[in-house]
């Protein structure tokens, strides 16, 4: 069953036509990746789905419900979480407070349990729970951003370049966690520059080029697709 369905979506920034009628879907339990060059419109797509941007034509359907016109803070309650590009953790709040904000829509009854789950996934955050988030290292901030997104028990987790700027060993670790979440049944929509690794963990992928989807297929198919290899996998 498809959890997220995007139909013929257009998005504009003023007069700039950034997304030009894309359609894709994410089924329950899948990891789906969007790959594409800088400026292709990947972040715009995720931000639109999350309700941060105004939608042009087309619609976004989540769990059978049309999301057009619903503000971002209400979309979260439908069971969607976006871990945005550039992390955007709350720098002046502590690690624990950031995670609590992730659970803002909850009633607090499962807070301790949820904190423990995140700490188990990212032990580094547990050691540093009192630290002001802005003083964490880049990698730790990325862990915090992912942990924060998980605190709301999302049915769909959207990750925008979770490996950006991280050392190879940390990239490895982030992808391990994506696999781990996948095996637990979390549905994930992943945007990555690192197409190689993204296509390896993904069930399916879409290739975005200047606001249009040009190719789609399973992760394996795309890994072996000539056009994709040339453009995104370095030959």
């Amino acid at each position, binding site marked *: 069953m498809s959890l997220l369905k995007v139909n013929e979506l257009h998005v504009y920034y003023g007069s700039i036509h950034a997304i030009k009628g894309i359609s894709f879907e994410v089924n329950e339990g899948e990891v789906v990746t969007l790959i594409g060059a800088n400026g292709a419109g990947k972040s715009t797509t995720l931000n639109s789905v999350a309700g941060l941007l105004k939608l042009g034509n087309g619609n976004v359907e989540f769990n059978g419900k049309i999301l057009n016109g619903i503000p971002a803070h209400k979309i979260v309650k439908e069971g969607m979480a976006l871990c945005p590009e550039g992390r*955007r953790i709350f720098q002046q709040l502590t690690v624990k407070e950031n995670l609590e904000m992730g659970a803002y829509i909850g009633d607090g009854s499962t807070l301790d349990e949820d904190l423990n789950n995140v700490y188990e996934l990212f032990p580094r955050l547990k050691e540093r729970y009192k630290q002001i988030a*802005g003083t964490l290292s880049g990698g730790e901030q990325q862990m915090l951003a992912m942990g924060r997104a998980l605190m709301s028990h999302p049915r769909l987790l959207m990750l925008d370049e979770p490996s950006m700027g991280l050392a190879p060993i940390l990239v490895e670790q982030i992808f391990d966690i994506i696999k781990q979440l996948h095996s637990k049944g979390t549905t994930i929509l992943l945007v990555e520059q690192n197409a190689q690794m993204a296509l390896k963990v993904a069930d399916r992928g879409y290739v975005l080029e200047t606001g249009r989807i040009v190719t789609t297929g399973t992760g394996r198919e795309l890994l072996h697709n000539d056009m994709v290899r040339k453009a995104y996998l370095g030959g």
Partner: protein
Amino acid sequence: MVSYLINGISLGSVYAIIALGYTMVYGIAKMLNFAHGDVIMIGGYMAFCSTSYLGWPVIPSVLFSVFVCTILGMIIEKLAYKPLREASSLAVLITAIGVSYFLQNAALLIWSSNPKAFPNMVNLPNLVIGDVQISSVAIVTIITSIIIMIALTMFTSKTKLGKAMRAVSEDKGAAQLMGINVNATISMTFAIGSGLAAIAGVLLCSAYPTLMPTTGAMPGIKAFTAAVFGGIGSIPGAMLGGILLGIIEIFAKAYISTQLSDAIVFAVLIIVLIVKPTGLLGKKIAEKV
């Protein structure tokens, strides 16, 4: 000497309460609400009307004044500032000045420019220690401001709503992604700030019991100065800035010159901002990429 200090702290406590409103609104909406000082004046008139015209006791009339100003703050935000959320900060600033004039002129229309004698709201004997006499208004003012500061600190550091407020002031988009209703949070901040302004209005008029439509203007500007002095956006900064400003003002009046006291206050501000442009407690955490 001791009584000057007490008076300074007392006046400074009022500035601090007003400065809290400036700083909270600035922190969350990134705007200077220049109408804030006039909300103080409205608060004063509300307390004046309910006691002098309606004969209400002190506590209900203070609560009434807080209630009216809270609602007023939310209305101002909704009608004047919310439509300008995406506009340039200059447009917002001009609007704020416009709201300020609107409130002053509305007060002029309703209550005329004749000063009203503010009723004595603190019916307690003055405290006499040795040959030092401390007015009961000063004591009530200081105690009230301590309570407000503790309550506000607890609110922002311990409660879910308070933390959400800090989250919104840092990154509205990210806060929305947490499920926080940003508009409601901004409205709540205006409500809190304006409610505090009402209390400040009552305390101010109790210490200086003449009430006019322009009563809020000068304290408003000084409290704004205090907020900048302490580091705009910082709650402890507003408290510290307010109290220091009050002390400086009273001592300048006592030892240097009554006429020059305001000039001295602003001179100190300028020196502090040259030495530390972010204010006493203002800070910036370097962003990591």
